[in-house]
């Protein structure tokens, strides 16, 4: 949590990027504590790994320190406080942390996932079976998202200096105007 605060405060982008990496790592730890090993695994690999690497890569291409913006906006603060208030408000009727009688633990679909999946799917790791079979369609979507991101980045960053059929010369993105 202090990390998060630090991220906001810090102006040097290098350290805030590293910090966000650490933040992901910590949260991964928290996930383990909360019995979400797969998520923790992923978060560690992605948050601490991929994102950080990419961000560092970006920093290498852009500025490394943030300009001090003297303007202090009230509006964002208000929005944030409002949203936070709404969330706190929402918690008041929530089932407590780890409460086994919470709606999501009672009844379907959770129980089937837990007790039937082993013979419906025959895979010990329930997460995997839910991920790949019960909600396989979601995972397909997820894969497509990654694919989209890949395409998007290529569209944006790949240099294209090949001659077109129309004989148009090298299209440099720098020549934006």
């Amino acid at each position, binding site marked *: 949590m202090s990390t*998060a605060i630090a*991220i*906001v405060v810090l102006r040097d982008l290098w350290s805030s*990027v590293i910090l966000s990496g650490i*933040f*992901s790592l910590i*949260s991964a730890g*928290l*996930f383990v504590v*909360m*019995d*979400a*090993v797969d*998520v923790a695994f*992923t*978060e560690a690999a*992605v*948050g601490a790994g991929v*994102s950080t690497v*990419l*961000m560092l890569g*970006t920093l290498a*291409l*852009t500025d490394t320190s*943030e*300009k001090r913006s003297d*303007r202090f906006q009230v509006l*964002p603060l208000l*929005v*944030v*406080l409002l949203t*936070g208030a709404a*969330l*706190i408000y929402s*918690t008041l009727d*929530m*089932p*407590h*942390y*780890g409460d*086994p009688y919470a709606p*999501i*633990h009672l009844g379907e679909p*959770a129980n089937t*996932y*837990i007790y039937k999946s*082993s013979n419906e799917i025959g895979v*010990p*790791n329930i*997460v995997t079976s*839910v991920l790949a079979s019960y*909600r396989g369609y*979601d995972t397909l979507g*997820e894969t497509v*998202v990654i694919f989209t*991101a890949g395409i998007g980045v290529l569209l*944006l*960053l790949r240099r294209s200096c090949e001659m077109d059929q129309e004989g148009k010369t090298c299209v440099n*993105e*720098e020549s934006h105007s």
Partner: protein
Amino acid sequence: MPNLGLFNYWVVIVLMMTGFYTVIARGNLIKKLIGLNVFQVSVFMLYISMANVKGGTAPIIFEGAKIYSNPLPHVLILTAIVVGVSTTSLGLALVVRIKEAFGTIEEDDIRRLEEEA
């Protein structure tokens, strides 16, 4: 003190808002993305903590375990994480291009440049 059980949600919410604030208040494009990350990760925490059950174990079936935490949120969050990283990478790519086109990644400067253009 019934609300003790909600304490960890509140922590999550505070985290969320920190991220959210960074997104909408900071002028630096990269910083915005970092904030977005924090925001999303804390939303993930919300999901994961709702999945947890007292005395439960990770939802991997093995002998001697009776109570498992709810696997569904885990799955959802796995997907959400992927979505998050995709967004981040695309955003970063955009930042790089913006830097090339405008020579800065500060919102104010860019806005000024656009007004001139």
